């Protein structure tokens, strides 16, 4: 049988599919980061903590209120987004005119606070969260067994990602948003409440992180550190795609998921570092990122 570097094609197919699934998480998370950076110029380092928050809110809704996964998928992002609104209103707003560094440091501090608090109250071992009944089980694709839930993750992510892209790049609302970041005074003069719009945009970006958190809850361990190391990987994805580029974040997210998946087959130990190698290369050759408009 035809083999690629000793790996049978059906195994490779399986790995590609798994990479795509992991890429879905990268895509949704990096999309949130890109929206926030592109429209607010803030490097949201608390994104990983907000992703964790999404998973925890889903767990709390189930544990304390008996609210199911499906409602949590809707409610948790709203709740996490709302905390984002508060953060924007109280703190981030004061930093827009400053260097990127300060936004990064502030949100890094916020991440430490959120993670520390959850560690105090929920410990570190993690909490159980079951896959919803409707999505348990899986399909035998011949080359691999695909759990229904993973299939759902890809579908949900693709819909959310391209929906967001469409709203920002193709609708009037998106046009206002983009205009507001270019020239807030001018857009404000048209009678549009620019600060409110910016605040809602941050809330939306954060809600995307929360959404990814809910998606992750049934398959990854729900614990306070789940987003801590993810943040720099996702951040690297955004840089590779081009800071602020919506489409760049989405495509790179899926793409790097696949590349990482392949690395796991050929050089498993290297899968943790491959993204950074790619980031270094991209920054050296095309610093504005693969899809960036300007450096």
């Amino acid at each position, binding site marked *: 049988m035809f083999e690629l570097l000793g790996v049978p094609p059906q195994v490779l197919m399986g790995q590609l599919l798994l990479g795509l699934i992991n890429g879905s998480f990268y895509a949704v998370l990096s999309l949130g980061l890109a929206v926030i950076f592109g429209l607010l110029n803030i490097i949201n380092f608390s994104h990983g903590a907000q992703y964790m928050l999404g998973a925890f809110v889903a767990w709390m809704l189930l544990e304390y209120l008996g609210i199911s996964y499906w409602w949590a998928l809707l409610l948790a992002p709203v709740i996490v987004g709302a905390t984002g609104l508060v953060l924007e209103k109280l*703190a981030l707003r004061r930093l827009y005119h*400053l260097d990127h560094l300060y936004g990064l*440091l*502030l949100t890094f501090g916020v991440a*430490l606070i959120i993670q520390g608090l959850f*560690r105090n109250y929920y410990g570190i071992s993690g909490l159980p969260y079951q896959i919803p009944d409707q999505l348990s089980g899986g399909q035998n694709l011949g080359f691999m067994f695909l759990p229904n839930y993973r299939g759902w993750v890809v579908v949900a992510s693709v819909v959310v990602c391209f929906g967001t892209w469409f709203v920002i790049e193709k609708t009037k609302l998106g046009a206002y948003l983009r205009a507001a970041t270019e020239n807030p005074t001018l857009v404000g003069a048209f009678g549009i409440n620019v600060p409110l719009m910016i605040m809602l945009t941050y809330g939306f970006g954060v809600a995307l992180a929360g959404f990814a958190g809910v998606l992750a809850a049934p398959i990854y361990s729900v614990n306070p550190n789940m987003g801590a190391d993810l943040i720099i990987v996702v951040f690297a994805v955004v840089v590779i795609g081009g800071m602020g580029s919506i489409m760049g974040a989405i495509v790179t997210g899926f793409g790097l998921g696949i590349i990482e998946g392949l690395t796991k087959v050929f050089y498993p130990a290297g899968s943790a570092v491959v993204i950074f*190698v790619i980031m*270094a290369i991209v920054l050296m050759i095309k610093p504005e990122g693969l899809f960036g408009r300007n450096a």
Partner: protein
Amino acid sequence: MSATDTQPAPELHRPATQGMPMLHKAIFAALLVVLAVLPILVYPVFAMKVMCFALFAAAFNLLLGFGGLLSFGHAAYFGGASYVAAHASKVWGWSPELSILVGTLAAGILGLAIGALAIRRQGIYFAMVTLAFAQMVYFFALQAEFTGGEDGIQSVPRGSLFGLFPVDENEALYYLVLAITFGGILLLYRIVHSPFGQVLKAIRENEPRAVSLGYRVNRYKLTVFVLSATLAGLAGATKSQVFQLASLTDVHWSMSGEVVLMTLLGGVGTVFGPLLGATIVVTMQNYLASMGAWVTVIQGVIFVLGVLLFREGIIGVLSKWLKRPL
């Protein structure tokens, strides 16, 4: 740190060649006196840790505060040097001063290699390139044989200075560490206030103008990068001798974040800020150790308050208040 309006560094209103202002002389002298008697008052190993991190933060500050370059990968030089120095002491049986020297040199070479690539980018892209390379160094430290994986290099012998003076005892080692870190910090002071430092400042304030004045900007940037990496390495190599171990903690990206915290807290671009910032952060970690996750929360609160209320850092605010550069 491209935007100049946020740059909190107070200007020195005197030519660089005039030597150290009286106030700074007085502070350095007072510091030296306090440090000389410190081992009587506090635990020497703790004091040595503070000094190592003070030097680390000061070296980082050279790059950020005076070079205007935010590196998010300084742990690579700090930790890298500590591995090399620990290896030299333990496996090759070198005396402490040689081990520290070779560790420092290794950090300098690493800084040259990474810096040569990184300085071609600016702002956040520069930060990301340094992060990317630091992650690769971390990966190397995790995988390589000689670094001992997550156990690190343990039981590093302290040996004898020049093969003659044993520094096994904390008190003896303390004065060696004091000499190294104090020397390193004075060297940094000298660099900042030299003509070289003045050109750096000019580049930081207005790079195109420096270019048009005929300065080879990239050469200056690379030099400051290598100097910063080397001195960060000196701090890391010294730390490995103090704690008799080198571990992954020192190369992890959160260490790169910690040094930013120290520098920011004390005051970016000030002379004494990083020293104070390092002292506060290390003291806090030391004395709050029993509080577990609350330490993380407190650090987070400091970050947030620092960014919102005193971006100039403690020394920066003090300096403004006294109307004197500190």
